[in-house]
């Protein structure tokens, strides 16, 4: 120890510790925060300019092409905006600016704290007030939909419960990791125990070369297996997610049917312009629905409900809405028939039924409406005339109830008097096509026994007309008849069943 001191005290200068010659740490931290704030501001400005360009492109109107083509073009751009989360990107701009402001406040407070605490406290107070105010409006916006101070943060908080409920489905492969690990480890442990048991039976502790090699191999393979398992568990949801995104992007590509459907949906939901809605409904009534969304039926019914006014059982049209109501009723029948055939799930139909039955009573009187037959056909779907025999048996003996059931049945029977039905050619085609689908649905619903007679009366009335209706109507009427005549027309595996129907009618009649 002394020697050490001696050596130290010899005239050699002790080495000096290098001192920090740069700016103080506080300044560095403040500068970093300020630069981050500046960068965020500039980046948001950059995005804002880009966003302005994107919005200009979206708002630009293509002057070429028909109205339908222009609508499709506009819808294509709108679908792209939804698919690529354009609104999220645009909403991130104010968030970035808010973050930049927060960073600026923090940096200033930190910087001024070193210089003068009083001044710093003022800045800190203002910044804290800003933060607290922002937190308040976020929470208020999340809690109350009516709160006018809505922010992206509030929306995110509101969506948290839904997101949590989706987590188990989305990340189910990841949750399987413990199971995978358990299986691998249990296999290893089982192996080890079995070897140990064998060794115990042999009565010695020495291992054979095969056992040693197997144990080493297993020890080497185990981590590889684990890594592979974890990779697969993580990669699988990513692959699934990527595939879904890919499918969605594909869906947005130039599929005219999808575009048309989206155009129609958008117009019906957002537009309040009468002529625009009328044009859309007229287009919808004549178009073939290759792509379908069950909400389309509800939208059509919403338009119809907006045009009519049920006063008790009597239904009247709102003044000036005659054309729109007629087109809406036709579209309702058209889309409803598509719904019952394409997606006859109880849930989809039940939604529409609930809306309909809330508006129209079972004894609704459509007499005097220009579309009374169309509405009558829709009414038949939701309020079938058929009275359940079990109900009658149950109520047997109660004469009043029986009479009530019968009168209701006969009232509904009288509603669809096709004798005074004289539609335009176009309307006739649409109605016949829709009723054919409904006939198939009702036949299926009734246990493959018979088609309701009001549908057969429609076929009879249409085929009795002089001159004959368009060929499409004739074919559809024959299809309705054939569905009733043929033993099992739903199981025909033909691209166009209608020709088979006609063939079957001939076969049925000339059977002997």
């Amino acid at each position, binding site marked *: 120890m002394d020697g050490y001191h001696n050596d130290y005290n010899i005239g050699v200068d002790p080495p000096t510790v290098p001192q920090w010659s740069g700016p103080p740490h506080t300044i560095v931290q403040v500068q970093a925060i300020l630069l981050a704030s500046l960068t965020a501001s500039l980046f948001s400005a950059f995005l804002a300019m880009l966003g302005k360009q994107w919005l200009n492109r979206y708002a630009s109107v293509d002057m070429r092409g028909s109205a339908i083509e222009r609508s499709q073009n506009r819808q294509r751009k709108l679908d792209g905006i939804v698919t690529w989360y354009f609104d999220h990107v645009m909403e991130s701009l104010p968030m970035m600016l808010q973050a930049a402001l927060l960073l600026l406040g923090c940096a200033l407070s930190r910087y001024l704290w070193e210089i003068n605490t009083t001044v710093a406290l003022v800045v800190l107070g203002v910044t804290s007030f800003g933060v607290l105010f922002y937190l308040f409006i976020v929470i208020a916006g999340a809690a109350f939909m009516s709160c006018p101070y809505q922010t992206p943060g509030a929306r995110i908080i509101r969506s948290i419960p839904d997101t949590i409920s989706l987590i188990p489905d989305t990340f189910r492969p990841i949750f399987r990791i413990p199971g995978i690990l358990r299986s691998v480890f249990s296999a290893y442990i089982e192996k080890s125990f079995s070897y140990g048991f064998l060794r115990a039976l042999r009565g010695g502790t020495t291992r054979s070369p095969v056992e040693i090699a197997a144990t080493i191999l297993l020890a080497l393979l185990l981590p590889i297996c684990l890594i592979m398992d974890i990779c697969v568990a993580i990669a699988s949801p990513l692959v699934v997610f990527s595939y879904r995104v890919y499918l969605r992007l594909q869906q947005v590509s130039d599929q005219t049917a999808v575009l048309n459907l989206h155009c129609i949906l958008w117009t019906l939901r957002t537009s309040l312009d009468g002529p625009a809605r009328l044009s859309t409904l007229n287009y919808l009534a004549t178009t073939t629905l290759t792509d379908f969304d069950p909400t389309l039926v509800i939208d059509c019914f919403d338009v119809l409900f907006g045009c009519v006014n049920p006063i008790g059982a009597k239904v009247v049209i709102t003044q000036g809405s005659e054309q729109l109501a007629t087109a809406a009723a036709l579209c309702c029948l058209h889309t409803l028939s598509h719904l019952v055939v394409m997606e006859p799930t109880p849930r989809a139909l039940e939604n529409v039924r609930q809306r309909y039955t809330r508006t129209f009573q079972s004894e609704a009187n459509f007499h005097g409406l220009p579309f009374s037959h169309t509405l009558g056909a829709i009414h038949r779907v939701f309020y079938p005339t058929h009275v359940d025999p079990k109900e009658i048996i149950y109520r047997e003996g109660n004469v009043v109830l029986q009479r009530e059931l019968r009168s209701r049945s006969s009232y509904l029977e009288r509603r669809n008097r096709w004798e005074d039905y004289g539609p335009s050619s176009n309307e006739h085609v649409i109605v016949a096509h829709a009723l054919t689908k409904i006939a198939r649905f009702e036949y299926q619903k009734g246990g493959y026994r018979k088609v309701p007679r009001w549908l057969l009366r429609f076929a009879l009335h249409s*085929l009795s007309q002089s001159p004959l209706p368009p060929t499409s109507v004739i074919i559809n009427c024959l299809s309705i008849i054939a569905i*009733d*005549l043929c033993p099992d027309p739903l199981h025909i595996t033909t691209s166009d069943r209608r020709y088979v129907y006609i063939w079957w009618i001939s076969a049925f009649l000339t059977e002997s």
Partner: protein
Amino acid sequence: MASSAGPGLIWCKRKAICALFPYAVCLEQDGQGGMVDVILRVARASDSGTFIWHHIKPFITTLLDKQSPPSLNRAIALASPHVLWWGMPHEKSRVTRWAAAVSALSYTEEVGQSVVDALLQIASITSLRPYIPIGVWAWCNHGDCNVLIPSSDIHRQHLSPSSSMFPGVAPKHPNVVKRATRQKKWLSLPPRCLGRSKGTGGDVIRLVRELGDVIILKSYLLLVWSEWDLIDNRSGGLAEMRISIRDDFSGIGMECHRQDLLKRLDDVLEQLDRGLGYLWQRKPGIGEDDIQIAKEQYGWLKRVLLEVDREAVNALARMSPIPSFSEVY
């Protein structure tokens, strides 16, 4: 189809079949008449012998409008038994259109049956009766001439004691029964048709008698007796038949007509003797009482006919007594 499918299936699918009929008429107008025939056969094979769905009736009635083209004549004739002739507006023009359609057609058994069925229905309505052209009644007399009658029928005819003009006398030449002969096959109405039940009223029989043609009168009786049915006695149909038999078919010269009528009555009585099971196949829902009444009605008519026949034989015997031995030599 009618026979194979059965009335049950026809009843179940009656609405669809009826709804198809207007289209079949359109095809008929274009020269493809097969579907009309088949649908009408199906309707005839149903329990009531007609279209069971009343919604089709207005369409069938519109076929008789003046504007309907001549190409629909056959369809009109075939569908005319299913027209609602009662309480119909423009009745004169419709009967005229029907008569025009019928007169333009040539005879086939199916058309003939439909025409006489409709004719008897029209004749039963007082307001329509004056508009029936006399020539239309000739359809009752249609039939396939020179039809080969099977030997079994001849055998039955000759062995049946009641069919003989001399009851209890066996045929003299049994070998005859083994041969088939060519005779006229009279037109007959289908088992279930409205024309037979409507057309046996006293008014209708009087109308036919007023035509003054015994052949048509006989054809009419053969038609309404072609299958058993209860004769309308409320309007004096049975009594009028008796009067007709006594007044119009008496005399020696009417023997061949009486033979034909007796043969037809024998056929009907034979049907009635076959029992309820057999008769239910043709007329579901009838009861033992109906059969008993029918037996009495047709038996009574037969007795009247035999009585007239016996009177004719007696009259013949009185007019030309057997000469005595001394007178001959």
